[in-house]
């Protein structure tokens, strides 16, 4: 995963895919991407409020794979119930970051200050390091990650993007189903 591509770089589009919560569904989705040569930039999967379904949020590299084909092929998977393409302007996007940063006694307060600015939390404190959790828009998480870099990153994990359509009346287009795209 390269941090060079921000969320507004047009080669990346976010698909919000509602799937049946059954064994092997993620393998079907991932297998489809691999056998048709589509590239996944990031992927997040979790159950929804309805236990029968899970939501997979996939950031697709549309430069290497035409979005319309990706959506149409995904829609053919029997366990895929609904596909929405979320345009960044019409969606609320979020990502979670866990990062362990080197910070000795002198630097610790600087780091803690930055964590405060980004609304994050210190989740672990060592002698010369901190582990921090930050949730926010992918842009904010990118910014925070680059601010932490100079201190020295010992470990980093991002969840990949998740998203829901905005509640501003434009959502019907954002919640465009696979059928509409074709």
């Amino acid at each position, binding site marked *: 995963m390269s941090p060079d591509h921000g969320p507004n770089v047009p080669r990346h589009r976010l698909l919000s895919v509602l*799937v*049946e919560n059954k*064994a*092997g569904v993620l*393998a*079907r989705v991932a*297998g489809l991407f691999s*056998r048709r040569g589509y590239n996944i930039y990031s992927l997040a999967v979790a159950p929804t409020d309805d236990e*029968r379904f899970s939501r997979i949020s996939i950031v697709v590299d549309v430069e290497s794979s035409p979005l*319309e*084909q990706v959506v*149409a*092929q995904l*829609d*053919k*998977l*029997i*366990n*895929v*119930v*609904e596909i929405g393409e979320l345009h960044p302007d019409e969606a609320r996007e979020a990502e979670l970051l866990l990062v362990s940063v080197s910070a000795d006694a002198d630097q610790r307060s600087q780091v803690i200050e930055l964590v405060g600015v980004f609304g994050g939390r210190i989740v672990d404190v060592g002698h010369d390091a901190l582990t921090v959790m930050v949730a926010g828009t992918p842009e904010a998480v990118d910014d925070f990650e680059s601010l932490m870099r100079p201190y020295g990153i010992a470990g980093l994990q991002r969840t990949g993007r998740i998203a829901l359509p905005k509640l501003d009346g434009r959502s019907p287009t954002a919640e465009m189903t*696979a*059928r509409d795209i*074709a």
Partner: protein
Amino acid sequence: MELTGAQALVKSLEMQEVEVVFGLPGGAILPVYDPIIDSPIRHILVRHEQGAGHMAEGYAQATGRPGVAMVTSGPGATNVVTPLADAYMDSTPFVCITGQVATSAIGTDAFQESDTTGITLGVTKHNWLVTDAADIPRIVREAFHVATTGRPGPVLIDFPKDVATGTMEWYWPDSVDLPGYHPPSHADPSAIQAAAALVFAAERPVIYAGGGILKSRAAEALRELADLTGIPVVTTLMARGSFPDSHPLCLGMPGMHGNYTAVTAIQKADLLLALGSRFDDRVTGKVSAFAPKAKVVHVDIDKAEIGKVRRPEVGILADCRLAIEALVEAIRASGPVDHSRLVPWIATLHRWQTEFPCTYDRSEPGNAEIVTGGAGRRPTLKPQFVIESLRASTPSDTILVSGVGQHQMWASQYWSFEYPNTWINSGGLGTMGFAVPAAIGAKVGRPDRMVWAVDGDGCFQMTAQELATATAERVPVKIAILNNAYLGMVRQWQHMFYEERYSEVYLSPDLPDYVGWAEAMGCVGLRVESPEEVIPAIEKANDVDDRPVVIDFRTDSMEQVFPIVPAGASNDDIVVYPSQSAPIPGALQ
């Protein structure tokens, strides 16, 4: 009523009105083979699991009903991967049941364990691993529903041994609940209107009919559309028989080995009605040069096909038959159709048909062999002549099955198909060895029809062990081997594109002894070496109805398939038979 999982599986197959299962037992599937004894379902014991899969495909293509194969875990399952991939490419409804090791042993590298659902993920429309006997009726019902609706295809049910020996309370689900599966049916009326408008405006329209015509049982609707509009029809390799070759508007097969008129009609067309076809690379040649002047209406039941290769002016996501019927209705509603606009186009097509028919140099009667400089003797019998003779000597509704290669192309070119589902071949995957088992499956499904397979000598050797199955099960198929002693299509490419450097393509006409092979398998074996012997041998074969017949036709190894559009070339660069004069590019009245 309490049943074992195995009993529930067999009963579920009975509920799906399965009449025959092609299979071979083994350890993990053993429990299911016990209740099979008491079931009215016929079981055909194959000699290799690949045979079971292709038989199920042949059965499905001949009858329009799903074929069913049942094999054991591990090697049984991996042996059936090729037929699954074949059925996936050709959208053949096929339900495959594989045994699996007990659920407690899954993932432990147990004896004859393989990750069957994982392996077949990319070659099935969907697959299921059953983990609870109570799920069996639901899953079987879902599997048949998925295999036979929408764009049909293969599905697989992986069936662990402990699920088979476990028990469940029998039920049969009233309906299928698949929230993510909604096959399209009716066409959007506005798209139909847009298509109708293009039909009225076109001066050089062509219907490009694909396998979807057969899958959606749209042959009658297609004929109505052609008769109503006067638009000529090309039938792809998968659609041969969906429109009668004898119909004046039928142009035959387009594509890499299509005839000149079918190929060129598409190139010069101003409107292409693509009905259940998918712009396969063997049809389009170089995509950017394919039908360059044509507006495209594309009807398909699979959304992913619309716009995948060629972006249509009008895309219609629908069942092909329903869409064609709606189009016919829309055109009728617009008043009487004037065919006179198409007269110059039809005249041009007729001229091409007269100038560039599929042809070959007929051999002189009397000589079985000709002496060739340095290369000894070779047969003079032309493979095309064998197919023409076979066509002339068999009922019009004969089911013709083929393998893959030169013989397949000649069969498609020189046979005259008059009815749907009379042509069964491996189109998309190109599976050598398809013909013998597929012919057996077709004959099991349609015992009332004469079933002939035209096979190559290379193909035949891949699956001919199934002749033992055919003899044992009294399935009187007839196999015509066009024995040119070579992997002929590869030889042709080495001849044309590799400076005649023949690499690993020679097979020998005598090894194996095909007549001996046939007799060893309980079949009648015949050998034909000269043109005069062809029809008597076919007539002899037609008279045999209690066992399979194999005819070893010794054919001219130098014969090549023409026309040919070289791989990657534009269809405009079609190469016709050498004895025909070169076509004038762009010749159009």
